[in-house]
């Protein structure tokens, strides 16, 4: 995977093909981010306006309990969601890859939550997790009177209730990505492993997964981006409650921008999110692109 042809004339095509990417990166994402950061130093309300207030928005942000709770929630949700998505997604993909019958059916079943608007599927989860008419009620009906399962209504558990639905919605896509990765692994590798008498689980763990590193990175970015932007799930299921127990940063940003009509505060919050992402991504980019790959 070292560098291919040198950067000379014949690479012109690659440069032409990359024009949309360069424009998008520079004009939209870089330009848009700078615009956002600049306006986070203003007291823009409904409309952006250049009335500078220095760091006021940031002071208010970090003095707001709801923002702190949001960050904590995102951390809990993020770590758990990342681990479970990857594990469940990979195991499902590995099972699907055993030349099973009805692969199309199973794949569609695992993937369908991804296709449905979360406004309503979130409502269904809200029902399922509701103690009065959801799972708890049914299990009590069978005779387990003391069974308690009401994660959305307990401030300490609510974020895990959201995780339930989040995994339900997101693991199908992870499974698909993994499946595509597995299908990209050469059949001969499996044969070779068999010949050497390596058990299947060892082959997965020590040969296949390392070979799928690029797919894992892609998946990791997709999952993490989804986590950072977590919004619909929360709105549809708890609206941030009970109390502010399931508030998340993206929801804070939107609520500030559009409901509170305080663009400056929303931009300050989104700038903080952006900064965190950059702090995590830049070292990764350096590792990924730096070193041996260059040259």
């Amino acid at each position, binding site marked *: *995977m070292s560098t291919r042809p040198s950067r000379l004339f014949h690479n012109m095509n*690659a440069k032409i093909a990359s024009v949309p990417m*360069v424009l998008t990166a520079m004009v939209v994402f870089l330009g848009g981010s700078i615009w956002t950061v600049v306006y986070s130093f203003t007291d823009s309300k409904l409309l952006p306006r250049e009335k500078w207030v220095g760091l006021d928005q940031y002071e208010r942000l970090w003095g707001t309990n709801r923002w702190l709770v949001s960050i904590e929630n995102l951390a809990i949700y993020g770590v758990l969601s990342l681990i479970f998505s990857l594990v469940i997604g990979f195991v499902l993909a590995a099972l699907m890859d055993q030349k099973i019958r009805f692969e199309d059916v199973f794949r569609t079943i695992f993937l369908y939550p991804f296709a449905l*608007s979360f406004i309503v599927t979130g409502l269904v989860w809200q029902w399922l997790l509701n103690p009065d008419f959801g799972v708890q009620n049914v299990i009590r009906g069978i005779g387990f009177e003391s069974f308690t399962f009401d994660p959305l209504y307990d401030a300490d558990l609510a974020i895990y209730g959201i995780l339930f639905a989040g995994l339900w919605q997101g693991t199908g896509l992870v499974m*698909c990505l993994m499946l*595509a990765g597995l299908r990209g692994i050469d059949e*001969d590798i499996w044969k070779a492993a068999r010949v050497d008498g390596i058990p299947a689980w060892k082959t997965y763990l020590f040969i296949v997964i390392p070979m799928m590193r690029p797919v894992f990175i892609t998946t990791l970015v997709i999952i993490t981006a989804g986590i950072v932007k977590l919004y619909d799930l929360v709105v549809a299921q708890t609206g941030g409650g009970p109390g502010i127990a399931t508030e998340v940063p993206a929801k804070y940003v939107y609520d500030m921008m559009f409901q509170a009509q305080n663009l400056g505060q*929303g931009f300050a919050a989104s700038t903080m999110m952006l900064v965190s992402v950059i702090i995590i991504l830049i070292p990764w980019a350096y590792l990924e692109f730096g070193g041996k790959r260059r040259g």
Partner: protein
Amino acid sequence: MADVTTNPAPRIIDGPRGRKPTRALSGRNIMIYGTLIVVALYYLLPLYVMVVTSLKGMPEIRMGNIFAPPVEITFQPWVKAWAEACTGLNCDGLSRGFWNSVQITVPSVFLSIAIASLNGYALANWRFKGANIFFTILIIGAFIPYQVMLYPIVILLREAGLYGSLTGLIIVHTIFGMPILTLLFRNYFSSVPEELFKAARVDGAGFWGIYFRIMLPMSLPIFVVAMILQVTGIWNDFLFGVVYTRPENYPMTVQLNNIVNSVQGVKEYNVNMAATLLTGLVPLIIYFISGKLFVRGIAAGAVKG
């Protein structure tokens, strides 16, 4: 890795990935299908609730037993969701925006995948100086919540004279699909065996030749994943569709939103469920049929050839 690919195992044997075992009820099969079925049930539970609810009348729903099958099955909610639900004055349900959604989704999916796959290809195989800097910015872009970019994009489109046009919307979808898709393709292409690329170069194939004759046919599964991502995202998009186009181009999700998202009014849960399921049908069909492209072995064959 190169060693393994270039030294294929000498004989074919049945392994975990071998041919389907003839015995249907082997312990291994029971484990695999057992697990898949149990997990599938967890996935299907909410769907069951949705379907059952969509077939009930409102009085039955008010009784609150979400698991009970409908006492009296009614398809009226489905009819209403598709053809009768009112969006303000226009009482023709989801059917109103269906073709608009198709007109938005098809070109957006095509354009975004075409551009992103070329980006990924250039980044993986024809890297030029500075490419990774743009790529890193792009990846950071994947983490920015869409809503934050709403107003800057309004300004950009206004200045470009594209505000309110279908073209503008297609460009917006292409832009926001680009980070993830480019990453997807770049990482997939970079795992394609290098020998293939070198051989093609020796044969005199250029940038476009290698893309169309080698990369594209070898990467069908990842194109499927990209298509799944984009069809789902764009078909279900509501915000961009409604902010960046005019009412005559509004996608189906505007009607869906209007049906399910009313704040101060009576909520018809059965119609909400039916509308959601109807809207989800198109991506679901794509998921189901696209499975045919989840194939293996083209890569292996190509190496040997």
